[in-house]
Each structure stands twice: as C-alpha cells, then as structure tokens.
C-alpha cells in the first residue's frame, strides 16, 4: 500500500490549491497561440504527475489552431479524476503563453484561490488588424498587466519571451513559464528537470533547463517583492496607436504610365488619368502602405505619412 500512501501524499502537496483538500483533482489550464508549445507544456506536466503515481487526464484543442490560432490544454491530476475537462470557474492554475489568450480564459479561473501566470508576449491575430491604415488602432486587448493583476487573487505577468530571448532561444519561453508553474506545485525540482529534458529537443536541453530555472527564480523573486507591473510592451502598443494622415506626391514628369502602381495598389485608389499619368483617385481609401512608392521603377511616387495631430 506504499503506492496509495504516496499518491495521497503527493496530491496533498501538489498544487497551490492543495489547501482545499486532497480529494479534488488539481486543474491546470494551459493556453496560448499555436506554435508556442502549449501541448509540450501540458505533456511535461502530465508526465510528471504520472511519474508521481497520480491519475492524469488531459484534453486539448489543437490542429486547426496550428501556428497562429488559439490553443488550450486541460490537465487534471489527483487521486481520482473523472472528467478530462475542467468545469467553468474551477481552474486552479491558468498558465498563458500569450497575453490576450490569458485574458480570454481568465473567467475560467477559480475566483478566490486561482493562480494566473501569463507571458506578456503579444501575438496580434490578423483579424485584430482589419483596418489597414497606418497607425490605425488594433483591436487587441488594451488592459495593462497592472490592471489585470489587480483583479486576480494571485497573478504574475512574466516577460518570458524576452527572458528566453536573452538566454539565446526565444522558443524556450514556454519553459520559462514551466519554471514559473513549478513554483505553484510541490513536485521535487529534480523531477521537473528530468521530465523537461525528456520532452525538449535534445540540442536545446541546456537552454531549456536554464530557462526553467530562470522562470522559477523570477516567480520566487516576485513573491518576495511586489510584482513588477511595468510593461514596456504595453506602453509601446499605446504609443503606436497614432493615427496618421497620408499624402501621396506624384511627380508627373517622371511617370512613364507603366501601370504597376494602379494594378498593385491593395486599395485600388490609384488610376492613370487622361494623360496616362498616375493619380490618386480616393485619398480617403489610401492606407499609406507605400507599395506604390516601393514598386514605382521611376521614383515618381512618394508617400508622406504624418501624425494626424501635426496636420490638424
């Protein structure tokens, strides 16, 4: 019966949610964008739990989401797990590899005790940039990490991508977050590292272990001090949203009526006039993408972008 006692012991220790008692399984929801390594993280976690004799159920949505779409993976472990999916609002730990994905799944988090660990990396989906005008506002979450953290019981906004990049491999960002996740559970450090080394590509074991330790020490540091809520990326996003006006200058003397600008303009707002010189038909449509300027072999087109404030 040593196994059973071990199971009981592990499940008691595992998870920040262990305080709720060892009967319920621990629910971890791992979310991100296709290609970031969500499935890898959940495999590591599931394998680790299995090695500790716990029952694990994992279910995921991927496939269509491959490379760029929304990916999530439910991992439930404990003495006995009945359903592979986590009921709404019962997530103990939400690990998000991308900022907006983290916000998308935040309502699933257990209100009082849930732990939210999120990368501040922003991957803007194409449908958030439907307005092609230069400087047009993106339809991407505007909440800053500080605003979000204030609403969650225990939240950490980690700039894991930058941390991994500084270690030399941006793709190890998910491992930084695994490191962060490891602090919320009480599995031995050596077991984490052993399982991690099994799952990452052999050539990158070194950088991944470094990333893991970095993520772990970052959270420990954040626990000791007040969480760092400054977000350079968030400010960058705010600064980028400066609507600009476009002026297209066409040197009629140099235009040779080759028609390239007219046919390649994505907004179809150029034409050849009666003298077969390029002209802008609809300035309101022009987004300032500069394609006409780049492709004009005669240097006849020049696109001026000015911040709207300067013009007004």
């Amino acid at each position: 019966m040593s196994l059973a006692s071990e199971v009981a012991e592990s499940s008691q220790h595992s998870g920040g949610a262990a305080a709720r008692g060892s009967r319920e399984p621990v629910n971890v929801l791992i979310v991100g964008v296709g290609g970031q390594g969500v499935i890898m993280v959940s495999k590591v976690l599931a394998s680790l739990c299995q090695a500790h004799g716990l029952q694990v159920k994992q279910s995921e949505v991927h496939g269509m989401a491959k490379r760029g779409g929304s990916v999530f993976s439910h991992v439930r472990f404990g003495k006995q797990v009945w359903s592979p999916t986590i009921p709404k609002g019962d997530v103990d730990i939400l690990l998000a590899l991308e900022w907006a994905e983290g916000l998308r799944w935040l309502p699933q988090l257990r209100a009082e005790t849930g732990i939210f660990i999120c990368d501040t990396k922003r991957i803007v989906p194409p449908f958030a940039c439907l307005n092609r005008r230069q400087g047009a506002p993106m339809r991407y979450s505007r909440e800053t990490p500080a605003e979000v953290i204030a609403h969650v019981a225990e939240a950490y906004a980690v700039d894991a991508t930058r941390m991994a990049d500084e270690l030399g491999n941006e793709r190890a960002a998910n491992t930084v977050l695994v490191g962060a996740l490891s602090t919320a559970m009480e599995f031995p450090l050596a077991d984490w590292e052993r399982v991690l080394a099994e799952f990452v590509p052999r050539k990158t074991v070194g950088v991944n272990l470094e990333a893991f330790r970095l993520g772990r020490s970052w959270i420990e540091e954040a626990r000791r001090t007040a969480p760092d809520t400054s977000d350079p990326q968030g400010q960058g996003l705010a600064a980028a949203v400066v609507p600009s006006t476009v002026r297209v200058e066409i040197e009629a003397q140099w235009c040779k009526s080759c028609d390239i600008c007219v046919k390649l303009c994505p907004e179809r707002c150029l034409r050849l006039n009666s003298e077969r010189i390029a002209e802008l038909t609809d300035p309101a449509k022009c987004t300032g993408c500069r394609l006409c300027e780049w492709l004009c072999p005669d240097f006849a087109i020049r696109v001026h972008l000015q911040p709207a404030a300067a013009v007004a």
Partner: protein
Amino acid sequence: MNDPIVLEGNAAVEEFDVRKYIRLQMMPHFLCPGCGHGIALRALLWAVHELGIDKDRLAVVSGIGCAGRLSAYIDANTFHVTHGRPLAFASGLALVRPDLHVVVITGDGDCLAIGGNHFIHTCRRNLKLTCLMLNNEVYGMTGGQVSPTTSETRITTTTQLGNAEPHFDACALAAAAGAGFVGREVTHHVPKLKDVMRAALEHPGFAFVEVMSDCTEIFGRKNDMGSSPEMILRQKSEIRPSAYRDTVETPFRPNTLPTGVLMCNERPEYGAAYRQYAQTVKSAGDGKQKRG
C-alpha cells in the same frame, strides 16, 4: 516638419527619400516603362540609407547594358566601365581603397557571359565587394538576344523557336566558385530585397545578390507575359524561399526559385590578406635597403 517620423516598429531613423541619393538632373531615367531595374536601384539606395553609408564613401561600378546604366543615376562615386569588366575594375578599387563601400551593378549578360571569367575569379578571391546582378533573362539594350540566364523555351530575337539551351543558375555558380555571401530576391518584394542587399553590404567578403528583374518591353512582350503589372505579379508564383541546398540539387530551375540569403560564410577576405602580405614584403624590402 523635418523631424524624423517614428512609425510602428521602425527605429527613429530619418525616413528614406530616394531623391537624396539620385542625380536629379539625370531624371527621368532612360529605363523603359515598368522596368524592374528601377525598383532594384531603389532597394539598393534604401539599404545604403539604412546602413548610413556616406555617399562619398560609396563607389558604384557598372558595366554595359541596361543594368550598367544605373550607376549614372546614383549620386555617389560612380564608374561606368567596359563590358564585362566591372568586377575587375571594382577589385582594383577595393584593393587600393579599403575604406570605400564598392558596389558593382551588372546585368546577366555583363556578369555571366562577357564577364563570366571575371565573375568566377572574383568569387574565388572573396574580396570585400558587393555585386548586384540584375537578371532580366535577356540582352535588353541590344534588342533582346538570348542571354546565359534565359529560361528554357523562352522566345528571344535569336531564339525564335524558343531557347533550347539550359541556363545558368548564377547563385549556384557563385556559391560553387567560392563567394562568401549569396542571395537572391525578386523585385516584387522590395523590403525583402532591401534586407538582402543590406546583409550583402554588411558582409565582410564578396557578396553576390541576384535580383530577378523584369524586362517588360522586350522579353515580356515577346513571351506573351503581359505588361509590367502582370509580370511583377507573376514573380510571386515563381519563387520559393528556401535553403541553399535546393539550389545545388536542382541547379536548372524547372518552375520555382529559392530566394533569400542562400549562403553566408566567413571565408577569409582577400583584401586584408593582400595588405598584410604587401606589408611584409615592404618591411622586408626596407630592411634590405638599410643593410645595403
């Protein structure tokens, strides 16, 4: 409003204006309407602008042909030299003046046919030079004769029934001959083309960039490829970003071409070795004189 405009994702560099880099009195240039060479020239000047190369430190050498004429429009130190020999002239210039950025603009005929010998030996030496080969698959200036890069079955004035000869893959040739940097891009992707040229200008050894350009008036018209917008859109279906391995394994392109930086290595640069050698000889000579 002379302040640099900061756009999303761009550093606060002054915005590129091609007019600051060309000889305005020469404009409009002599190229036919829709000729891809103009786009390639803009990409080169853009790369020069981004690297902040002083115009007085830029030397452009070009040979004969449509591409050869481009040097005349650049407001820098420019040399328009004999047919096929721009690389030979540029080699001399780069050896004597290592402080200059020497750029060679050459065409497919100039580089691979008349200047083929100079080309392979410049690749072999790996002297710090940037060579842009503007490949439009035809001898445009002389009336549209077949060139070493004309694709199979293409019609030119000298291959009225379609070209039966296999053509050169200039990038594979340059790589095989020992060039340190080999890149290829089409004129349709201007920012990418600029990036490849920029990487080439930064490379410490011999950098070769093949620019797939369009000859609309002579080549496109004869081969029923439409006018300039149709030709430039065609490029999209004919390229495939890929690794250098592909170039070697399929040197004669059936339909698609690999583009991007195809090869970049750190072979020793010849100019430094040459100057060191010259220095050794010189100091040895000085020693002799003193003894005598």
